[in-house]
């Protein structure tokens, strides 16, 4: 019934490991939030890991990524060191944004990770611009832009889809449809709940994918990446997924049934993928535990790193409001 995982063992286990790394990182972040070590808004991706993992493994290393405030996983998968992510959430100088951004504003120039955007739908037109530059400069890198289904109600999203289609720009629009925007269910926010139909009408090819299945995500993204390159056009993927946790650490979750959450948890991406791997003989329980332990160790090392990291000196506060003049 379930198609076998079509990858060599290394790669197949790598996907699982990356999902575990995100999961452990965020579970730990939630604890640290409880302890007051992390503050501000913290949006967890738990339950949605298959999307970032499957999708980002289909991108080239130098493709650009634009994400949202729920972006720990995307940052990690794009290659931002876990240490730098954790230190950022701690507000430390060694953080990937020198402690100035926090959880919602992870940035990394080296890996072309363009954030971390706390304005819903704010990333879409930015991605369009990055893709425009790439096209005009004759490059071949694409820009992947992640956002939630709620963002599609914003005018910014409509304008961006149109621009990308009109100018045939290499943007991969990755919509993480987790059914809710904070407490607002999709059907209460958009008359058109078939997101692909909505997007296609803008002239952007679109496909819907099971976002709980890392293999499906990966395959669909690979195909979409090819389409972007071959068709010189944008592409839209709807990943049907679910967030297992509250929207943020303040959300009392009044708007959805516990039963619904439990139902989705049964389809948890780590759980089901590892079962699949086991059924196929690519993984056994000790192997799973080893991967888990490895992820946990990486997280603990990141915590230790962040704990030890120093604060940005207050004297530097006004730096980088403007770019310092280069010495001649």
């Amino acid at each position, binding site marked *: 019934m379930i198609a076998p995982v079509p990858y060599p063992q290394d790669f197949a286990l790598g996907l699982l490991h990356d999902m575990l790394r995100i999961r452990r990182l965020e579970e730990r972040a939630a604890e640290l939030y409880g302890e007051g070590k992390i503050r501000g808004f913290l949006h967890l991706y738990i339950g949605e890991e298959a999307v970032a993992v499957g999708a980002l493994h289909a991108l080239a290393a130098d493709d650009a990524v634009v994400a949202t405030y729920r972006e720990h996983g995307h940052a990690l998968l794009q290659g931002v060191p876990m240490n730098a992510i954790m230190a950022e959430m701690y507000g430390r100088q060694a953080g990937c944004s020198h402690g100035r951004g926090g959880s919602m504003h992870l940035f990394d120039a080296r890996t072309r990770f363009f954030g971390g955007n706390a304005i819903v739908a704010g990333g879409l037109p930015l991605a369009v611009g990055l893709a425009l530059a790439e096209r005009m400069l004759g490059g071949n890198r694409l820009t992947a832009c992640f956002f939630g289904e709620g963002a599609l109600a914003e*005018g910014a999203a409509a304008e961006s889809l149109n621009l990308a289609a009109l100018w045939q720009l290499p943007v991969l629009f990755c919509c993480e449809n987790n059914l809710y925007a*904070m407490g607002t269910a999709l059907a209460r926010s958009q008359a058109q709940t078939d997101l692909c139909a909505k997007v296609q009408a803008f002239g952007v090819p679109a496909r819907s994918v099971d976002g709980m299945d890392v293999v499906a995500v990966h395959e669909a993204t690979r195909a979409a990446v090819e389409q972007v390159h071959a068709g010189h056009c944008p592409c839209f993927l709807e990943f049907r997924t679910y967030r297992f946790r509250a929207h943020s650490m303040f959300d009392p979750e009044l708007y959805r049934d516990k039963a619904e959450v439990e139902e989705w948890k049964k389809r948890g991406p780590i759980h089901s993928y590892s079962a699949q791997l086991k059924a196929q003989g690519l993984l056994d329980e000790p192997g799973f535990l080893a991967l888990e332990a490895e992820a946990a160790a990486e997280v603990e090392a990141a915590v230790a790193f962040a704990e030890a990291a120093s604060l940005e000196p207050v004297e530097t506060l006004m730096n980088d409001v403007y770019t310092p003049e280069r010495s001649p």
Partner: protein
Amino acid sequence: MSRTTYREALRQGLREALARDPRVFLMGEDVGRYGGTYAVSKGLLEEFGEQRIRDTPLSELAFVAAGIGAALGGLRPIVEVMTVNFSLLALDPLMNTAATLRHMSGGQFSVPLVVRMATGAGRQLAAQHSHSLEGWYAHIPGLRILAPATLEDARGMLWPALQDPDPMLLFEHGALYNLEGELDEREVVDIHSARVRRAGTDLTLIAYGGTLGKALSAAEQLAGEGISAEVLDLRVLRPLDDATILASVRRTRRALVVDEGWRSGSLSAEIIARIVEQAFYDLDAPPARVCSLEVPIPYAKHLEEAALPQVPGIVAAAKGLLG
């Protein structure tokens, strides 16, 4: 008197308005099922139903503009824009329609709209979630700007705002939601005047919204050092209550504005300009100000604190004025 919080006082104001006038309704992102991002509207959906507690899509421009249309159509909308940071998406309808419509139609159409939003920093929410733009909005003719800093104002400003035929922006400071205290239910709340919150003789601290508490703490500390600071709560940022401001400054002959807006072009500048224009020869020292540093508000706690007006800075500036 009853013990309550700023959040609950706001909710009480909403509940009273909804109960009193069937034309009043509340709309905005997550005001209903979620219970309000800051839980201000929690329970109101159950009480008033989904017609009147209306969850909106993420479409700040359209639902603010629809609020204007609904006001023209005979309702009394309260539109919640989750935070001032997102209101930038709705600036076009706010400035180009709500603020202009009455004048440009030759007085035919008023826009009885109230827009509520959370403002301010102090909770480590970083650059895109920490703006203090209420003073900046106060530049726009045709709008009225309110900044409740007390429990009484949190509860009591809404109803007179709804009675007013013109568009009104009501800024709730995010750091005040948990403020607890005794709410004086008998206090008559107007939406026109500034108020002296602490009387004093040596200088006037002019504050509002999120900075009122800091100014009062500073005044307390100054009192300990023998300096008597009057603390003025602006309450209404547009139109400014010049009479009350100037009466106080003429008495104390020294003014310090405490403003969470970025210094350049902040409301503090306007207040200083007005004081100078109207009371130059009554001053014993140039009016001064303590504002936010001109920097996108950073996440790290120590940096955020350094970027915002704080009590020690206010105290020091006050002493500077006197020395």
